């Protein structure tokens, strides 16, 4: 019999909800069968923790006396530039922002020691950061220079706002050239020396709800150790890619825009990261509860790594040249075993998405729900699904002359 989210929430409030992680549900369904499991289980929790470049935060630092207009001026936090094209005391700091003085890749491969993601981690860890402002001065905002320490707790608002997180599946990166390359999928050794991947597979939120039946706009989530919400589909949301019979996409597909109060987060689940030769980013922890409304929702959560397929892409030629060639397809069971086979060669694998932390998140969210600390929400609108016609378009350059 189908359940509603309200019914599930009543059980959560009474401390009676049956909650399993997306890993635990696999064996449970194998033992009990889909029908029984769907009746017994109320919520399945998912988790993912990995570098997600489209991340950042909005801040309001309050007004100085005399006042200063940050908007249209230059704003830096620990020398990392923030976007100030907003009202007087608001700005946005992106995870990949770098200090102007950073040598970047001028000495290749660049180290990218400290960027926006690191500033966000420092703030969340309770550290003071240096705010520097250059403003142009107006009659109502006369101050032109500001240098001060700021901390998260002193700010009016600090909102993590990530326009593209929690990718539903991702490429496996390899290098078929004869030179080492440095990419956002890490250092790739020549002649298929290693392969890197970045998904929590069977624990990953969107792989457990492949058609976005329960995850939608307004879904309350675990975000960076605190509470957040899904507020839109992510940028590059691409639900119409090739899918298996289980509806699970074989290619990078759906994405989420998420938001949450940075003040409630924890640097254990938000970590600045540096990719040599590529840049800075932020590793984000996300956990999403899936209410078991019916057998179909339940069946989708029981997906296992051996049933989730990812494309192997060459990052020396095919990816940078935006060629659609795929060298092979492998499963997350193979990837997590430590080696994949390609062109008759055994290739060692390494992940960037931490399965260990994904599991921790799913377990933490499970405990929050069991202890009635986390109540589920009903989404107010759905995300575009595989029948939506929504797809990812390349940029067709139109020369100016």
């Amino acid at each position, binding site marked *: 019999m189908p359940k509603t989210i309200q019914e599930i929430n009543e059980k959560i409030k009474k401390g009676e909800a049956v909650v399993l992680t997306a890993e635990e549900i696999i064996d449970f369904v194998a033992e009990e069968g889909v029908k029984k499991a769907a009746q017994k289980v109320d919520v399945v929790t998912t988790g993912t*923790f*990995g*570098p997600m470049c489209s991340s950042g935060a909005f801040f309001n630092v309050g007004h100085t006396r005399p006042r200063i207009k940050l908007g249209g001026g230059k704003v830096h936090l620990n020398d990392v530039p923030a976007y100030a094209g907003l009202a007087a005391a608001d700005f946005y700091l992106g995870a990949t922002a770098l200090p102007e003085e950073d040598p970047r890749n001028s000495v290749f*491969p660049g180290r990218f020691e400290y960027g926006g993601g690191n500033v966000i981690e420092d703030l969340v860890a309770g550290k003071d950061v240096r705010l520097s402002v250059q403003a142009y001065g107006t009659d109502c905002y006369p101050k032109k220079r500001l240098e001060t320490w700021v901390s998260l707790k002193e700010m009016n608002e600090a909102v993590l706002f990530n326009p593209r997180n929690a990718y539903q599946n991702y490429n496996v990166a390899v290098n078929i050239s004869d030179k080492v390359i440095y990419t956002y999928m*890490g*250092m790739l*050794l020549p002649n298929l*020396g*290693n*392969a*890197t991947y970045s998904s929590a597979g069977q624990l990953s939120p969107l792989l457990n709800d492949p058609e976005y039946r329960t995850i939608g706009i307004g879904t309350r989530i675990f975000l960076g150790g605190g509470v957040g919400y899904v507020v839109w589909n992510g940028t590059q949301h691409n639900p119409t890619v090739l899918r298996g019979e289980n509806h699970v996409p074989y290619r990078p597909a759906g994405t989420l825009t998420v938001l949450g109060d940075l003040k409630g987060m924890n640097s254990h689940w938000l*970590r600045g*990261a*540096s*990719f*040599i030769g590529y840049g800075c*980013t932020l*590793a984000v922890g996300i956990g999403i509860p899936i209410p078991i409304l019916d057998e179909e929702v339940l069946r989708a959560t029981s997906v296992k790594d051996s049933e989730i397929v990812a494309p192997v892409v060459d990052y020396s030629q095919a990816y940078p040249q935006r060629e659609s060639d795929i060298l092979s397809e492998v499963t997350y069971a193979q990837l*997590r*075993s*430590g080696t994949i086979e390609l062109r008759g060669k055994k290739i*060692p*694998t*390494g*992940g*960037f*998405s*931490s*399965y*260990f*932390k994904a*599991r921790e998140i799913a377990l933490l969210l499970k405990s929050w729900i069991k202890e009635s600390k986390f109540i589920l929400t009903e989404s107010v609108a759905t995300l575009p699904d595989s029948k939506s016609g929504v797809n990812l378009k390349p940029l067709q350059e139109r020369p100016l002359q």
Partner: protein
Amino acid sequence: MAKRKLLLTFPNNLIDQPITYHLVKDYDLELNILRARVTPKEEGRLIVELKGKKEKLKLGEEFLKGLGVKVEPLALDVAFFEDRCTQCTACSGVCRSGAITVDRKKMKIVFEKDKCIACELCVTMCPFRAVEITF
């Protein structure tokens, strides 16, 4: 036969001396150079694996110390910071010496210092700076 992996630091005045030659010639030691770096006018650093009879190995080490070469077990210079590590496993895919492996059940990194040859591929790979090797 005994085996030792050592980090040898040569002071400036010894850089131009053929010291490792004596380890082979006088102490009958098998010598495998894993890494070497010489900073002219400063010092030389060498990571070697020495293989030979136990007593000869001991005498060889004493010979080095007597000359003023700093002899340390290699493991001392490799630091793995558990608190910075997110267990992403990226490093395990580039570690060729078998020092970094993954406990596949826990999906957690297992780091065995004694197998490390300080190639630093993991340092380049790690986005969280969880490994530091001073060489």
